[in-house]
């Protein structure tokens, strides 16, 4: 079981790294939102799943409740992260920032 936990942890770290590199490299803030919001969501799903699995090593009622709470956090992140992204996009649209198209300079 330890191998499964380590595998999921490393996969989550790869997704988090991709998110951080993407935030630095993409040209404008609409395209930066793609790695920021979603690779982070996927990474936290994988890492939290691995941690809740590791937490079930000693199977007691308290440990099961704690793992359930971790899964609840993941569900909350999956609901709230698109909403936060949509809020940021909406703010940019109302301020009148146009999206970056091919051939513009980096912002």
């Amino acid at each position, binding site marked *: 079981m*330890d191998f499964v936990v*380590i595998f999921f*942890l490393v996969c*989550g*770290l790869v997704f*988090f*790294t991709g*998110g*951080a*590199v993407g*935030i*630095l490299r993409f040209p404008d*803030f609409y395209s*930066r*939102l793609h790695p*920021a*919001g979603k690779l*982070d*969501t996927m*990474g*936290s799903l994988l*890492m*939290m799943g691995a*941690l809740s699995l*590791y*937490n079930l090593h000693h199977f007691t009622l*308290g440990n099961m*409740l*704690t793992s359930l*709470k*971790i899964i*609840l*956090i993941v569900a*909350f*992140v999956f609901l*709230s*992260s698109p*909403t*936060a992204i949509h*809020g*940021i996009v*909406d*703010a*940019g649209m*109302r*301020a*009148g*920032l146009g999206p970056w198209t091919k051939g513009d300079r980096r*912002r």
Partner: protein
Amino acid sequence: METLFLFVSLYLCLIMVLSLYRGIFGPTVLDRLIGVNAVGSKTVVLLILIGLIYERVDMFVDIAMAYAMLNFIAVLAASRYFQKRKGLYKEMK
């Protein structure tokens, strides 16, 4: 296993520094908001890792849940606040 968790959390801190670059030097306010949001979503995982290292997960998981909610509400409130500002566009030039 504790050593592995320690190294994983150190690596997470390193990635958080990368995201913090966008939070400090981002050209517009919204870029800074993206950076802060990315740091916050990594902090939730980091809190649970700290709980596993100190073997007090049942306490730290509540803190992580409260932090996730606080991160969501902070981003939403900040983006709603800056919607009414006209200064977003000028800052780029």
